[in-house]
């Protein structure tokens, strides 16, 4: 078959049409400037479906779940002093370039929770849909998981429940406390579990860490200086 001779203009028009048809499949790069569905985000915030309670996170770690990434947004020094087992250290400034898959489940925590909440927006803005923050941050983790307080004059049911909580606390190297203990200890006085010491043998399987960031917790040592 012989192609009809085309004029230059017809050839250019053909090129434009071909490129235009190709552009139908294009996904132009939009860089760091994005549009957000503010109504959707406000709804998520209000319904609090973006929170993970420290106890839930503890349960996940004990179960050895690996379907999520736990990110510690604090500084390297703070991370080195103590972090939740299986966490990866990503300072907030490094977060936009941190390699995460769009659909990956990401759990964020910071000291109190403000940085985690801000980072939550950052990741949402980048199009990550499964982003969660640890309720109360590391402070919440300490209060609820590491150093839970047994309610004074607890009923037998409460006691039984607290026994489980206490077991989890000991698993992570924390110390369950009674109400009087809690009153005696001033803020920040608890001794944080030591890191990077061999796991105590009686502990059940420790959570398999996210790749490259394994640091099993041991029973608390009597040595100080590891506190936060």
């Amino acid at each position, binding site marked *: 078959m012989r192609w009809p001779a085309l004029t230059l203009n017809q050839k250019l028009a053909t090129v434009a049409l071909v490129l235009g048809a190709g*552009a139908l499949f294009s996904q132009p*790069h*939009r860089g760091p400037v994005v549009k957000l569905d503010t109504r959707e985000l406000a709804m998520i915030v209000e319904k609090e479906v973006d929170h993970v309670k420290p106890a839930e996170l503890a349960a996940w770690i004990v179960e050895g779940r690996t379907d999520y990434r736990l990110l510690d947004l604090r500084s390297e020094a703070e991370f080195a002093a103590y972090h939740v087992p299986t966490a990866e250290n990503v300072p907030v400034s490094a977060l936009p370039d941190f390699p995460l898959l769009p659909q990956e489940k990401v759990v964020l925590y910071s000291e109190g929770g403000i940085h985690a909440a801000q980072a939550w927006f950052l990741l949402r803005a980048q199009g990550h849909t499964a982003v969660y923050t640890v309720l109360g941050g590391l402070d919440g983790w300490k209060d609820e998981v590491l150093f839970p307080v047994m309610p004074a004059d607890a009923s037998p049911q409460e006691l039984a429940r607290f026994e489980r909580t206490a077991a989890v606390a000991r698993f992570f190297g924390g110390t369950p406390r009674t109400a009087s203990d809690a009153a005696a200890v001033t803020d920040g006085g608890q001794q944080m579990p030591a890191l990077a010491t061999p796991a105590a043998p009686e502990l059940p399987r420790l959570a398999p860490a996210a790749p490259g960031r394994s640091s099993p917790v041991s029973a608390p040592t009597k040595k100080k200086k590891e506190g936060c």
Partner: protein
Amino acid sequence: MMTPLYKYGFFGDEMSLLVAFALGIGFGFFLERAGFGSARKLAAQFYLYDMSVFKVMFTAIVTAMLGVTYLGWIGWLDLGQVYLVPTFLRPQILGGLVLGVGFVIGGYCPGTSVASLATGRIDAVVYALGIFAGTFVYAEVYPAIKDFVNSDSMGQVTLPEVFDVPWGLVVFAVVIIAVAGFWGASAVERWIGGKS
């Protein structure tokens, strides 16, 4: 390397002025080469016997649009950073009509008048004085028309956003419109201008 170069700090203010100068010279050169330094050629567009203005402008639009789309697709250009003139629908429709009337009467649009001025045409000098006079008058009456000028604000919007369709679909549609427009423009030239 990622563009926009200026916004990402690859060069500063002085360099950006030099780049603007080089682009401006290039723009003027090609306007002149296309014959747009002549008011006769430009006015012919409105009498429909020479559709060069339509063709050149639409060619520029399609070329730039395809370039931007593909550069954005391969990740060299960050489309989110490209400056968009904010849309004020009715004020801009009226402003476009005013510019069109001036275009028909004067035989130039602002850019071509400067290119024509560079070649020393006297009507272009008069037109340039008109630009300054018009700018001055606009500034003086601005307080009175301020509310209208700033009405109908839609922000920095694009057609894909307004019509909620994929980017690529708009690109394809514009190419189709352009090709159909070229075909139609040539038909009009044959019909009115007697061109073959």
